C-alpha cells in the first residue's frame, strides 16, 4: 500500500487467456457492429502483471497464444487496447493504424436504415 505510484513504460507482450465473440450488446455503438458478425474480445495477462480486456485484432488468435497489446483511439475517441499475434508488426503508428482500420474500429459502424 503506497500512494507514490508512478507511470512507467512497460512491455506490450502478454498471453491470451480466453476469447469471446459478442453476439449481443445493450448499447447502440456495439449493436451496430454486431449486425453482420460477432465482435471478438479477449482477456490477456500482460507480462507486466495486470489482466486486461482488449479487442482481438486477428480472428485466428487462440487462448494460450502470445500476443502484443497496443493502445489506439476508436471511433468514439476512446483509448482502447487491441491485441494481435506476437509475430504481427505493430512497431509503427502506421502499422497500428492499419490494424485498427482493418477491424473498422476507427469508423462508426453502419446500420442499414439508420437508428
Amino acid at each position, binding site marked *: 500500500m503506497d500512494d507514490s505510484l508512478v507511470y512507467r513504460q512497460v512491455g506490450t507482450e502478454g498471453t491470451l487467456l*480466453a476469447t469471446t465473440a*459478442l453476439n449481443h*450488446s*445493450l*448499447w447502440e455503438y456495439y449493436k451496430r*457492429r454486431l449486425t453482420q458478425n460477432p465482435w471478438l*474480445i479477449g482477456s490477456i495477462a500482460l507480462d507486466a502483471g495486470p489482466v486486461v480486456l482488449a479487442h482481438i485484432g486477428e480472428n485466428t488468435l487462440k*487462448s494460450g497464444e502470445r500476443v502484443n497489446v497496443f493502445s489506439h483511439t476508436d471511433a468514439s475517441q476512446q483509448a482502447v487496447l487491441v491485441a494481435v499475434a506476437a509475430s504481427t508488426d505493430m512497431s509503427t503508428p502506421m502499422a497500428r493504424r492499419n490494424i485498427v482500420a482493418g477491424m473498422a474500429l476507427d469508423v462508426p459502424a453502419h446500420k442499414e436504415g439508420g437508428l
Partner: protein
Amino acid sequence: MKGYDGVVLTCPISLGYAKQSPHGAAWFIGSVLRELVKAAGIGKQHVDGFAVSSFSLGIDSAIALTQHFDLRPRWIEQANMGGVSGIIALRRAARAVQCDEASIIACIGGDGAAHRSFEATAANFSSWSVDAAFPYGAGGPNAAFSLITQHYMDKFGARRDDFARIALDQRYNANHYAGALLGHKRLTINDYMDARPIAGPLHLFDCVMPCAGGEGFLVMHEDRAKQLDLPYCRILASDELHNSYADDPVQYRSGWIDYMPALYDRAGIGPEDIDLLQTYDDYPVISMMQMEDLGFCKKGDGPQFVQDTDMRFDKSGSAVNKLPHNTCGGQLSCGQAGSAAGYLGITETIRQLTNTAQSNQVLGARHGLISGYGMVNYDRGLCSAAALLSGARACIFVKKCGADLNSLAHIFARARDPLSNAHHSAPNLPRLIYLLLWLYSAAMPVVTYNIPLQNYVANAWMIAWYIGR
C-alpha cells in the same frame, strides 16, 4: 468462530417479480417490509433493525428509507454487494440480535426494473468496469462470464450439455414455483442447445433475465419466534471471504475453498448431509464452480457431477445421486431481481426447512446450504459467502404436519403431469390416501433421524385428531 445459538430466521417473503415495473426500489423494499410485519403478526414498531440491499435506490440509502417507511430502527445496515448481499445481511443481523443490539431485524433486498434501467446499471457497475470493460462492448455481465465460461470449458473439458443439466433441472423446479417469471415455460435440451448465441459459449438460457422484485426475511431470538408461533430455522454456520485467489489469471475458484472445511466442522455435518443446495446462479458455470468449492465434488469434476446428479426438488430425475438445487428455479428461471437475487436462496431455504414451500417442497429437508457470489469489478466475481441452515424439527414434524400432507398430495398429483398442476392447489384425494401418506411422512423422521419419542407421541395425537375429524 462463535456459533449463532439462539438466533433464528423466519418469515421468508418473495414478492412482485416482474420483467418491467413502474415501481422503484423503495416500493419493493417497503412492500416486502409490509409483508414481513404481516407474516410475523407484529407491529411495524417492533422491527428495530433494518438491513437493506439494492442497486437502484439511486441517491437514497437505507437511512432515507426509514423516513419513507416511518421506521425507528436502533440498528441499520446497507449491504450492496449483489450476490452475497443476502448472506452478508444475514450474518450481520444474526450477530446484532445475538448481542442484543436489536431484537427483530428485517433483512430486505429489492430492486425495480424501469424501461432500460438495466443498461444504466450495467454501464456504471464499477469504475473499473467503466474503464476496462465497457469500451470493449463488455459492459454488463455477459462478456465477463463468457470469458470465465470459455476458460473453464478449456481447462476442465466442460461442454454446453453439462451446463444444460443445471439450467434444465432449475427450470423444472421453476415449473412448480408460482413466483418464477419463467415458470410457465418448459425448457428442453433442444431449446437450450438451439438458443440464440449471446457471447462466446453463452447462449440465451445461460443468462439470467433482469427483472424487478423483492425478497426478505426476519432475524430474531428463538424465544421470540416461539412466542409469535412462527416456523423458523437456525444458522448452523456461515462464513465469507472476498477477493481471494486474486492471482488466478481467470477465475475458476473462490473463497469457499478456504473456509468450507471449517464451516462444515462447526456445523457438525458434511456435504453428504445437505438436503438442498442454493447456489448463486448468475450463470451455470458459476453454480458448477460453487458445487466444487463447497465440497460436493473435486475441482474440475463439476461437469461429471451435474451429469450424475438429479437436481430436481422432487428427485424425479433419472440420475442416481440426488441433490435438490436452486429449488425454486434460481435466477435462471425466476429472474434476477437486482440485489434481491442475493436473498433468493435464503428465502427459498427458509421456506423449504420450515416446510412452507408450496408445490416445490423438498420432502424431509433438514439441512440447507446457501452460497453467495458476486460483484464483478471487471473480470471476476470478488465476493464469496455461505450459510448452512437447519430446520427446527418440532416445527416441521408437529406443527406443520398439515403442510406435509399438502405437499405430498402435490407430489402425487405431479407424477401424472408436472406442468399442468404446477400452480394448482392439492387435488381432493380421499382421506384414506392422505392418511397413509401422512403416516409415512410422520414415521420416516422417527426411523431415519431418531426424533425424540415425545414428538412421535405428539404425532400420534395428530393422527387421532385427523381420524376423528
